């Protein structure tokens, strides 16, 4: 499930205050997502790359993040160039690829990889529980923060329940095929997981009531910003601002 191996590292990206990381990652992602000039996107990709280097992301972890995203993008490359109207660029049999289509596919490729790079460097370098506390400190509504915590805590429990059910099916000779029996069994499996999760939620809530829960959550965590955090935050905000200037003004 969630392994968090990379979160245990000790690079600059690991040591930064998690709040700074969340702010930077969010602003960077939004800015890049709404940009569409190469002038802004190419530097963004370079920045993503620099972040990955600074955080010393192991190549395996990097691929784990980038491969799924780029698999999706490969599909875009199959369709976008041929379905977008505009100036013809080349032909594959009866299909015509347009300049605009290729341009859009390139743009999406650059954006996605730049954003993924920064997310891996900043977010994956933070333990999930720390992320949650940082979200709390950033005044993100506590319901969202606690949904986040509960998801993290119980996704493992639900996964274990899922594996138990799958094993119970296997030892009784279940082999998935293309037939009604398979579909029905899988539907039962999913249904059973929902029921079990619901019951689990009730028991957890009861346990919380027993410990005096009255609808309010308290946090034990305290973060403090150090000079390095301020410097990094200002520097990175300046870089993001630079990207925005490149995108929205016509200075170049």
């Amino acid at each position, binding site marked *: 499930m969630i392994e968090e191996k990379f979160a245990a590292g000790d690079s600059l990206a690991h040591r930064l205050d998690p709040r700074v990381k969340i702010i930077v990652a969010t602003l960077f992602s939004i800015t890049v997502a709404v940009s569409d000039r190469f002038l802004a996107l190419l530097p963004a990709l370079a920045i993503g790359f620099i972040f990955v280097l600074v955080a010393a992301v192991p190549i395996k972890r990097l691929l784990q993040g980038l491969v799924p995203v780029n698999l999706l993008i490969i599909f875009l490359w199959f369709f976008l160039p041929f379905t977008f109207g505009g100036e013809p660029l080349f032909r594959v049999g009866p299909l015509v690829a347009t300049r605009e289509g290729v341009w859009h596919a390139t743009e999406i490729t650059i954006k996605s990889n730049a954003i993924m790079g920064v997310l891996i460097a900043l977010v994956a370098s933070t333990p*999930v*529980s720390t992320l*949650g506390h940082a979200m709390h400190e950033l005044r993100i509504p506590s319901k969202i923060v606690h949904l986040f*915590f*509960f998801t*993290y*805590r*119980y996704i*493992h*429990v639900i996964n274990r329940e899922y594996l138990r059910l799958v094993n119970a099916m296997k030892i009784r000779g279940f082999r998935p095929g293309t037939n009604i029996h398979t579909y029905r069994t899988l539907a039962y499996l999913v249904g059973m997981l929902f029921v079990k999760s619901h019951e*689990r939620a009730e*028991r*957890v809530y*009861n*346990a*919380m*009531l*027993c*410990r*005096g*829960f*009255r609808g*309010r959550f*308290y*946090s*034990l965590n*305290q973060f403090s910003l150090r000079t390095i955090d301020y410097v990094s935050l200002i520097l990175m905000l300046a870089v993001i601002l630079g990207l925005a200037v490149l995108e929205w003004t016509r200075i170049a």
Partner: protein
Amino acid sequence: MDKNSLIINLSDISFAYPGGAPILDKINLELHQGERVGLIGPNGSGKTTLLHIIMGLLKPSSGNIEIFGKTVKQEKDFGTVRQRIGLLFQDADDQLFNPTVLEDVAFGPLNLGKSQDEAREIAQKALEFLGLTGFGDRVTYKLSGGEKKLVSFATVLAMEPEVLLLDEPTTGLDEATEKRVVDILKGLDLSYIFVSHNIDLLMETTHRVGYMINGKVSIDEGRVPHTHVHVHEYGRHTHKHALNWPYKKH
């Protein structure tokens, strides 16, 4: 016994799950200060249900619950009950929901209005008491089964309760961890109700044992745990005795 020392007094409690057969049928149960009561009985005999009724998690269909000398009925009445009585759940995964151990143990004290520092200190103490010093920063879902059980025990003790309700606290634990839990219990100066399937364990940890079956609980002073020697057929086979059916058949 003296009326003032009465902590839990259930009278004529009945309970049925919606659409199901009655699980508890006019049950009477008393727990006095300093008393340790064991509950044993077949699966589905309502042991867990009974504990949940005491905590106000389930509402009995009829009967009267009196705790610390006061009748409790509404959700708000149970606020104080939950502060003074701690329930250890069967499944530790239900009890531990915070990302780290320290936060989970501090959850109760924080709810009781303690400051962050106080809560942290109480949590550390509870962990230390259970021999879990240094566990504070561990991630709850990565703990082993035994560790989870001990940590959820710590979350209950951190509420500084006067009474414990223990729902099969040693089920699924290895012998060493079970012994650890039992030793801790014996060392505590608390009253408790201990639910278990293990009669030997109850004989070791409780003063008297109640037997639950068919919606009734029978505790009478005549039925105290004791060892005896007797003769009967099939005696050469390894076997156990309990206080009543189904274990008594021989």
